[in-house]
């Protein structure tokens, strides 16, 4: 009798917990995904690591006990990022023979750096939009077209008849311009804040 009651209780708790988990994951998967991307040398593997991370987080969600309710979100992201770092390491270990795999120490160092300014990534993304809008049309088009689905420098070079090498150096100059602009934007924002 007593046991049955206890089980019911567990189910109800679980339901609530699952609710909470889905809500947190749905809202913050992007932050976690960005973090994962920073630890891997390319986009390859980000999906796998995210998938592993989501499962592991759910398995261990019972252990997630935020210190203060108002800090739940922040702590959830940090907690999930710790799980993600671990998953990123093991993913790379599995892919060890591939050429483009970071050394474990590099991943550790990057994860520490990324963890220290998790909230900066979204600010940077917003700053990129502002900076793009300040660019000339053709510059903006070049930068974006490289990142558009199915595009590459080689393709654009073939289309425009321009030398890939020259396009590449123009693109790098523009990216540097954007980086400087973003840095300046963030400095302004923090200053205003």
């Amino acid at each position, binding site marked *: 009798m007593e046991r049955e009651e206890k089980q019911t209780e567990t189910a109800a708790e679980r339901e609530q917990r699952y609710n909470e988990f889905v809500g947190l994951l*749905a809202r913050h998967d*992007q932050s976690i995904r960005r973090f994962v991307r920073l630890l891997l*040398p390319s986009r390859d593997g980000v999906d*796998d690591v995210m998938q592993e991370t989501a499962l592991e987080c759910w398995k261990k969600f019972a252990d997630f006990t935020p210190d203060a309710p108002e800090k739940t979100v922040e702590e959830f992201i940090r907690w999930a990022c710790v799980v993600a770092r671990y998953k990123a390491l093991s993913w790379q270990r599995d892919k060890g023979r591939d050429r483009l795999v970071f050394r474990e120490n590099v991943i550790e160092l990057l994860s520490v750096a990324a963890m220290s300014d998790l909230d900066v990534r979204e600010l*940077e993304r917003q700053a*990129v939009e502002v900076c793009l809008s300040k660019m000339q049309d053709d510059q903006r088009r070049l930068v974006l077209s490289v*990142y558009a689905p199915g595009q590459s420098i080689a393709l654009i070079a073939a289309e425009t008849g321009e030398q890939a090498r020259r396009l590449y150096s123009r693109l790098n100059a523009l990216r540097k311009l954007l980086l400087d602009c973003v840095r300046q934007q963030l400095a302004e924002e923090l200053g205003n804040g």
Partner: protein
Amino acid sequence: MGDDLRGLMFQLIDGTISSEDFKRLQDAIESSDDVRKEYLRIVNLGESLTEIANEPNALAASPERDAPTNSGRPRISIDTFAVDLNSWGKTVAASNANASGLAASAFGSGGDLRRWDLRSPGLLIAAAAVLMFVSGIGFWFGQQNESRPIDVATGGDGDAREISEPQIAGHATLRRVVDLRWSKDAAAYHEGDVLPDGLFQFEAGVAEIDFFCGASLIVEGPAKLDVKSDWSVRMLEGRLRANVPPAARGFKVLAADAEVIDLGTEFALEVQADNARIEVIDGEVELRGGTHNGDHLLTGQKQWLKGGQDNAVSLQSLSTIDDVQRRCNDAQAERFAQWKAASLRLRVDQRLIAYYPIAETQFERTVRNSAASGGNFDGQLVGPVNRTTGRFGVESSGLEFDRPGARLRTRIDGEFEAFTFACWVQIDSLDHRYNALFMGDGYENGEPHWQIRDDGCLMFSVMVDDTQDVRHFNGIDQQVVRDAGLHRVYYTEPIWDVAKSGQWFHLAAVYDPNGRTVRQYVNGDQVSREEIIEKFHIKSLRIGAAEIGNWGQPFRQTPWFSVRNLNGTIDELAIFNATLTSEEIHALYEQGKPLGY
């Protein structure tokens, strides 16, 4: 930090870095916190640019992008959870296969998750959340390298006029028919009709159907087709010849258990109860499904799709477009001749006031009144009236009034006891609020106005007392409007909409002061009948100066005039000083109807 190192980071992101440089870069990352910070910034810049480049209109010329705030993104809240759809959209993953794998294994490893959401209504929120989770992940995985979903927060360009843009449902046009007999209980169509999806069936004759994709079918009856889309049709019974121009390559005809995909030009198909066969007349088709899946047939090649017999007659004998054209021309010519004979009989009808058989007239600026009853009521073309094809094909003429200055003026003096107006008209569109058929100039006492309102309602009216200043409530404008003079407009229900553009209609209006009724007809059938009440009763009718296809107001006090020209063609108009019976009007329709009616 040097450009050299930054260059390596760009190379890593672009996937062009060498192993040696990759090692160098890792060394640098390990050795300096600043390098690490810069590396994170550069990777994040690449991610941000990818997200932005994936947005719709990302490459549009204008830099006027919305201010970068979170508020511009769609949020859907479920109870206390706000799920940022956009973040799902931005996150990228492998494939839907993986997605379902994750969803399934997430539930599996979570123990009883899957059962929870179904067990009790109290778990509705959980269920909703689960759904969001599942669909969210599906969405999330499906979004890789695709544009963002439509931004519901900004809702597009917000052009309110777009909401009322007219739309027609359909996939093909019935271009021509010859000797067509419709099946009982099946929908019947006219030449020029837009064909919706669904069955198209006839007992005998030939129909030429142009699909919107550009493919055109000549179908010989008895035939039964199921129109599927702009690009495909199922042939249930009958014989067809398909002509597929380059623009329509890929057009598909489904027959028996196979799909016939045309890779260019022409093929013939016959479907009967026990067999089905195809023959390529010119070009190439591909067969999919059935026993011949993957086969390609070239010019001259034949294949049984079902059943089969050795002594089948070649499908080459099927009607070609030229055959249909010829048969159509022959049939048109015959119809035209029949109408001319009927028209000659009509001219001697003593009840006629005026009769304009425009269809048989030549290219002159005068349109003769052909009524034997006499009266010099010839019409004169004024302004840019186009002579165009009448309802019996190119051999016949019609007058097109599609420009505001186009008019056919006449002057019909006399006093009349009753009116019957009848005309054949092809309406391209109802561009103006009122679109003229026949209009007395001054709209003085006893004078008629016959027109079509922009919503497709026919209007017939006679001025009763032009000295009165009448105010009445106008249902369309929902306000009281001032009318110059006492008159009453008799309306029909809408008889026309844009789907009927280009079709010929026989319209008639009977104004009967003695019987105190107004009757109106479309294609020989009465569509309205209204009593003339005492207040609007007038015995003495006149016409005077008047116009066909427009409204002339030569005596107006201002330079402004109402634009009421008919965007369409009229090729016959008769006015009687009498009330024709419904039978007589139906007979006029029967004698004058074009091919395919």
